[in-house]
C-alpha cells in the first residue's frame, strides 16, 4: 500500500536571532510516502529526541491548511513545490528516493528568526492593527440584511479575505515585501460598503506601517501570487494602489 523512500534533509538550524545559523544534513531512512511533510519532520524529531538531541523547531498548528502557522522554504520555494498549498498539506509522495531536500525559514528583515525554522511574524499583526478592521463596536450593528451587497462583490471580498497570514508572500518576494498580505485586507474591506467610511485612513496607515516594519517595496515580480496557498491575486495589490492614490489625493488624511 505505502512505499518508503530515503531522503537527505538539509535543514536550517539556528539557535536564535543573533546566531548565524547553518545547514545540518540529516539522512532520513524509510520515509513512508503517505506521510505529510510535517509528519516526516515529526518522525525525525522523535528520533532526535530519543538520541537526546535538540529537536528541529518548526511552527505548525491545524495541519489542515487554514491556520497559516506552518511554512518554510522547501528546495527554495515557499510551502514547497505544489501550487495553492500550505506546507502541512505537502506529502512525501511528491519526492523521490534519494532526494536531497533543503528546508529554510522565511527570511526577511521584518521576520526575525526565533529558532531553526520558526520566525516572528508579528509585524503582520501590526499591519492589521494599523487599520485592518472596521470600527464597529459590539452591539451597535444594524440588521445584517439592511445593506445588500452584490454577490460578485461579496465573492471578490471573500477571495481577498481568504488570506491566512502565513507570510509566504513575504518569504517568496525577492524584495521581502508584504504587499500581497496588506492588499488582501485592504481589498476585502474596500470592496464592502461597510469598509468604505475608513477606507482612506486604512490604506494610508496600513502602508505606512508596512514600510515602518521593514518590509521591502513591491516591484510586481508576482512571486507572491505564485506561492500563495490561498491563491490571492495581485489584482488586490492594484486595488490597494488605487485605494492609496485615492486616499492620498482625494481624502483629508495627511
Amino acid at each position, binding site marked *: 500500500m505505502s512505499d518508503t523512500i530515503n531522503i537527505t534533509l538539509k535543514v536550517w538550524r539556528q539557535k536564535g536571532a543573533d546566531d548565524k545559523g547553518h545547514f545540518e544534513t540529516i539522512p532520513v531512512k524509510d520515509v513512508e510516502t503517505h506521510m505529510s511533510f510535517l509528519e516526516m519532520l515529526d518522525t525525525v524529531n522523535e528520533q532526535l529526541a530519543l538520541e537526546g538531541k535538540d529537536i528541529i523547531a518548526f511552527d505548525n498548528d491545524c495541519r489542515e491548511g487554514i491556520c497559516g502557522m506552518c511554512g518554510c522554504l522547501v528546495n527554495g520555494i515557499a510551502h514547497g513545490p505544489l501550487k495553492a498549498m500550505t506546507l502541512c498539506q505537502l506529502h512525501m509522495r511528491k519526492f523521490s528516493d534519494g532526494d536531497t531536500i533543503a528546508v529554510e525559514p522565511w527570511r526577511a528583515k521584518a521576520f526575525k528568526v526565533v529558532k531553526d525554522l520558526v520566525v516572528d511574524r508579528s509585524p503582520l499583526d501590526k499591519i492589521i492593527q494599523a487599520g485592518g*478592521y472596521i470600527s464597529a463596536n459590539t452591539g451597535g450593528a444594524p440588521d445584517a440584511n439592511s445593506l445588500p451587497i452584490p454577490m460578485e462583490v461579496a465573492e471578490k471580498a471573500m477571495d481577498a*479575505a481568504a488570506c491566512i497570514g502565513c507570510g509566504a508572500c513575504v518569504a517568496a518576494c525577492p524584495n521581502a515585501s508584504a504587499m500581497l498580505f496588506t492588499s488582501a485586507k485592504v481589498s476585502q474591506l474596500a470592496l464592502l460598503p461597510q469598509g468604505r467610511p475608513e477606507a482612506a485612513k486604512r490604506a494610508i496607515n496600513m502602508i505606512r506601517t508596512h514600510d515602518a516594519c521593514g518590509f521591502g517595496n513591491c516591484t510586481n515580480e508576482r512571486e507572491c501570487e505564485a506561492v500563495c496557498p490561498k491563491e490571492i491575486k495581485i489584482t488586490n495589490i492594484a486595488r490597494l494602489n488605487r485605494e492609496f492614490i485615492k486616499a492620498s489625493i482625494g481624502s483629508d488624511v495627511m
Partner: protein
Amino acid sequence: MQLESKVPSGPLTEKWSKYRGEQKLVNPANKRKFTLICVGSGLAGAAASASLGELGYNVKCFCIQDSPRRAHSIAAQGGINAAKNYPNDGDSIWRLFYDTIKGGDFRSREADSYRLAEVSAAIIDQGVAQGIPFARDYGGLLANRSFGGAQVSRTFYARGQTGQQLLLGAYSSLSRQIATGKVQMYNRREMMELVMVNGKAKGIIVRNLITGEYESHAGDAVLLCTGGYGNVFYLSTNAESCNCGAAVKAWRKGALFANPCFTQIHPTCIPNSGDYQSKLTLMSESLRNDGRVWVPRKKGDKRAPNEIPESERWYYLEEKYPSFGNLVPRDVASRNAKQVCDAGHGVGPTGYAVYLDFADAIKRDGRDVVERKYGNLFDMYLNIVDDNPYETPMMMYPASHYTMGGLWVDYELQSNIPGLFVLGEANFSVHGANRLGASALMQGLADGYFVIPYTVAPYLASIYGEAGQVKEDNPAFKEATQQVDDGFKKLMSINGNRTPDSIHRELGKVMVDKVGMARNEAGLKEAIDKIRALRDEFWKNLKVPGILDDFNKNVEKAHRLADYLELAECMALDALTRQESCGCHLREESQSPEGEALRKDDQFAHVSAWEYTGFNKEPKLHKEPLVFENVELTQRSYK
C-alpha cells in the same frame, strides 16, 4: 457543595432580558480601574477581549500561537446558525433553542440554551458590520443553507471557511483594541497556573513559549477561553496546540469539571493510515448527502473496493435505518462505523475505515454535478490519501472533534471559583450531550460578544473596593511560579526513554477504544486501569530532550500530556457513572430492545460536576439537577 446555577426566575423567554435589566452595572469611569485577564484568543477570547476593551476595561489577552488569528476556531468549515428566519421557512428563537436542547439530548440548562438562541441573530449582524464576506444571493441578501439535518435553513456561511472568517472578524476588532491600547496582547504564552488570592481568581502564571520564562499577570477576573480537550484522544481534528491545560489548572484549584465524558465524534474524517499520523482531517458532513456508506459483508475482506460485487457490500446504515439511511445523526453514524469495524468488516490499511461511495451519485447526476458540489473536498482527499474518489470509494472513519463537557459555569459563565469565568468550548454550558452542526461558532461568539460583557459586571461591581489591589508582587504569584517551576523541573528530571508523543499515542488508543462512542462498564474500568498505568509510565519513563529555558516543543507536549493523563481518568470515571446512553454516546448496557441508545431521565437528568481531590486520587462527583419546565423530554428515533 451546592451548585448554584443563578438562572433568573420568570418565563424562559424573558430570563435574559430580565437579567440584563436588573444586573448591576459598572460605572464607565470605574471600568478603567479593572483589569481583566483573557486566556485564549479564539472566537470566545477574541470576541470577549475586543468587546470588553470597547467597554473601557483594561484587558490582557493571551494567545498560545504566534498570533490571535491562528486560534483553532479558524478551522470550522460549515457555518454558523442564527435564528434570523431570513428564508421564511419557519425558524424562530424557540425552534433553534429547542433543536439545541433536543440535539443535546436534554442534558443542558434550558435557560443557557435559550439565551444562546436569543443572541444568535445579533452575531450575524455584528459579523456583517465587521466586513465578514458571508455568502449572498444574487439580490445581494445573505444566503442560508440547511446544515446537519436541520429542517430549516438557518446556517450562514462564508464558503467552506466560515470559522476562519468569523475568527478574522473577531481578530480585527481585537486588533483595533490592541491599537488603542485597551487590550494588551501576549502571543506565544501558555497558561501554567491560576493564581488565587483569598479564594478569588486574581491572576495567572504563563510560560513564554519562546524563552521558557514564567511571567506573572494580575487581574480582577480571569476569563478562560481555551477551547476543548479533544486532543486527549491524540488523534483528533484539533490543532496541535489545542490543549486542556488551562482548564485542568483551574480544576486543580477547585473549579468543577462538568460532564467530561461528553465528547463529540465526527463521522466523516479521513482515517488513520499509520503510526506516524499526527492528526485527522475532517471532511464536510455534506458528503453524506450523496455518498453511500458500506463495508464488505465478509469479515477481513481485503479485495479492492471495485472488485467487491454489489451483493457482497453491506450498506449497513441504509439497512438499519431505512428512513434516514446515510443521513443519520453524527453519533449514530459514528457509532455504527465503529461497530462494524470492531466486528472485523473495516477496510483500509488499519481495518478502521468504512467506504463512502459516490459511484451511484456520479451515475445518477453525472460527474459534473458531483464535482461542482464536492470538487474541493475530493481534491483534498486525493491530496492526502492519494486515491481518486471519483473512481474508488472514499475511506472514512470517525474522529474526536468537539468536547461538550468543560468547566462548570453558572448562568453568568462564572465557575464555582469567584472571578473565574469560562467561555466557549471550554465551558460545559449549552450543548448538553451533543452539539448541533454549526453551533460551535455560535456559542463561542455569543459568549464573547453578547454574554460576558453583561455577566462580568455584577461580579466586578461586587469587588469594587478590590479593583487593581492585587498586583504581581503579591506573594501568591511568587509561590505559584515556584510550584510551576518545580513541576517542570520534575518533568525534566525523569530522564527515561519515552517521548511524550509515544505515551500520548498510547493514551489516545485507550480513549478512542474504551471511552469513545460506545462504552461499557468493563471497558471503562479497564480504561481507568490503563490510564493509571500510563500515568505511572509517564512519571517514570518520560524523556524530554533539550532545556527548559528555550523554544522546546517537547517540554510543551510533556507538560500538556501530564494534564491529559489526569483528565482522561476523570472522563472515564464520568462515563462509568453515567449509566445511560445519551447524546453522542452509547452506553452498551443502556439500549432499547432495537439496540438504540436509551436515555434514563429519571436517574441522569443532571450535570455531573467533578471536584479534583488530589494527584492519583479519585475526583468527587457533584450533581446539578437539570430542570425542564418548557420542553418535554423525548427519546430520539431514526428508524
